[in-house]
């Protein structure tokens, strides 16, 4: 019987073998059929118009201290590309293809490709079907979206949970006057990516992604199911969901640090009230399973905005969110009793200059994670983004102390098309 170490959700960086992953996806029987269909129809309707958007971005990172682990570089460069191609497909059909790549100077795990989307949509009057690789967002909170369970995180990309791997799905959407009912069959699981032995920032131990273990005997072929009901009534936006299948964040085996993907049933809700300058937001989930202790997680908070401060175009938003996990120290997340305080600045100028500063404080141990991010458009096609992350007061925190020497500054210049 292997004992489990808590994984460092939110603080880890991902990455199993990318090319293997992609070929695995493309070899899914139905994906092959879709691909063939696309190529056939593509040649038949070559005149149909593609629309596209995306970016090509050069990123450089500077680490302010020597690491406590095997990756010793103090700087890193990488190049990434995101694109989304879209075209109508017959009268009611539509196809989206969103490839992604990154080439990284040091981390072989971070050099990877993915298909974020390869999704065919059929739209009827009161329903819609989506088949292929898709990307779905659920949630309302700013600090962490605990209800957002459909896609695996592409955690090797960075701390931002918004980097996601394309998820194989068959989705049926029923459109109602009050909102929608969304039903999912998810055939095929994507393993989380983690920083490799030469990757920074990361924790002390390299995650052995080549030896992932599963609770289910079907392993990554386990078919997950999910449903969500969502809608808006006046100032309220509400979503209720249920998920049954493989949890997206693994436990880690000891002493190998291999990911262990376990089965869960999750029910949850996300609610936002929009009251003039106040936004009140709550996400709540309850998870049960055989490997984990049944537990609840909560993110709740508010956002207040000051508009046109001092008769200028400056807007300032204040965000405060509380994160809770009722397993306390047993939690496989760093957010078991934490508070996020953030400030958002938008200059609303010609270059859309924006900045976001925040600090997450562990109310039990006192550890802090400081983050700052600023961006500004340059000309019509470029955007410069600067980011800094500092881990502080972590000495009493088993998980966060691994990042004590991983503080970094990151600059990214993106070309957009």
């Amino acid at each position: 019987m292997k004992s489990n170490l808590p994984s460092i959700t939110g603080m880890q960086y991902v990455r199993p073998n990318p090319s293997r992953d992609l070929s695995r996806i493309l070899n899914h029987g139905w994906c092959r059929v879709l691909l063939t269909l696309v190529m056939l129809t593509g040649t038949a309707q070559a005149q149909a118009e593609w629309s596209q958007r995306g970016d090509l971005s050069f990123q450089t990172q500077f680490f302010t201290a020597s690491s406590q682990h095997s990756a010793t570089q103090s700087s890193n460069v990488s190049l990434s590309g995101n694109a989304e191609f879209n075209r109508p497909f017959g009268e009611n059909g539509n196809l989206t293809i969103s490839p992604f790549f990154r080439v990284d100077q040091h981390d072989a795990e971070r050099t990877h490709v993915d298909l974020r989307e390869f999704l065919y949509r059929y739209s009827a009057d009161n329903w819609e079907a989506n088949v292929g690789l898709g990307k779905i967002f659920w949630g309302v909170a700013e600090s962490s979206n605990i209800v957002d369970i459909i896609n695996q995180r592409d955690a090797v990309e960075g701390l931002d949970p918004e980097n996601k791997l394309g998820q194989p799905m068959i989705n049926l959407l029923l459109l109602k006057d009050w909102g929608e009912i969304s039903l999912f069959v998810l055939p095929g699981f994507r393993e989380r990516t983690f920083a490799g032995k030469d990757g920074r920032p990361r924790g002390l131990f390299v995650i052995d992604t080549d030896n992932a273990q599963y609770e289910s005997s079907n392993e990554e072929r386990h078919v997950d199911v999910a449903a969500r009901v969502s809608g808006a009534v006046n100032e309220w936006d509400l979503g209720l969901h249920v998920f049954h299948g493989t949890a997206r964040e693994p436990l880690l085996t000891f002493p190998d640090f291999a990911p262990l993907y376990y089965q869960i049933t999750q029910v949850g809700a996300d609610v936002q009230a929009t009251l003039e300058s106040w936004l009140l937001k709550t996400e709540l989930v309850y998870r049960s399973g055989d490997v984990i202790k049944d537990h609840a997680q909560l993110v709740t908070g508010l956002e207040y905005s000051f508009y046109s401060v001092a008769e200028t175009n400056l807007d300032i938003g204040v965000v405060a969110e509380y994160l809770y996990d009722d397993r306390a120290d047993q939690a496989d997340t760093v957010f078991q009793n934490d508070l996020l305080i953030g400030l958002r600045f938008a200059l609303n100028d010609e270059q859309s200059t924006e900045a976001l500063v925040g600090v997450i404080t562990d109310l039990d141990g006192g550890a802090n994670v400081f983050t700052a991010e600023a961006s500004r458009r340059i000309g019509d096609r470029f955007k410069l983004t600067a980011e800094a992350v500092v881990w502080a007061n972590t000495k009493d925190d088993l998980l966060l102390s691994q990042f004590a020497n991983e503080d970094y500054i990151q600059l990214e210049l993106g070309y957009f098309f």
Partner: protein
Amino acid sequence: MKNTLSQTLAVTLLFSMSAIALAQTAEEKGLDIAQQVSAQNDGFADSTSSMTMTLINRSGKKSVRRMRARTLEVIGDGDKSMTIFDEPADVKGTASLTYSHATKADEQWLFLPALKRVKRISSKNKTGAFMGSEFAFEDISSQEVDKYTYKYIGEEEVDGIAVHKIEAVPAYKYSGYTRLLNYIDKERLVAVKVEYFDRKNAELKTLTLSDYEHHEGKHWRPGRMEMINAQTGKSTILEFSDYAFATGLKDKDFSSNALKKLR
């Protein structure tokens, strides 16, 4: 019989209206004209259009934004509208959905294409700059009669056009203006010029509306709007093209799911 009756009714109405007009106060006359301006826009069902917005700074440097809009007329309430951005490239695919209301707060959602996230946002921000331009959100939001109180000032000429000059005071307490001066073309019943006064009642901006075209035989729409900020020297030109009316858009084309699918 029917004709005779409706004719009689029309004649009676005409007389009673002029009788009212005679007894009108400046406030009543201002409101009356505002209602007529609003009425000439009624019954459009839905519309789509393309917009090019050119921002010009003090030294004359220009930057361009492009977007497309669709609007659904809602009888008895504010309209529903969607805007999708095509330029600048870093916001391409970003789209907004607004349910405007005459008396209560608007409802507003934003679609962020990179995250596939639809975000409900506060609609209280009326005074902020739209995309860094000289247009505030309240300048370009659905113009409902009830959003202002009116006072008729007099008659004037603007660029050779005979106009009604009407003062409008925002009813919304968070407006960035103390008052607006509307110059309404007497013949076509459309605004050709608007002057905005800031919270200190100092002249702030002047909007000139031109290149009006008559659509569907009933609706006048400007082809060009130029906003000049007297305090900063900056200006923004908004040009409209590809107007289409009654295209068959329905309520469901203005849902958060439709917002995700807009290209």
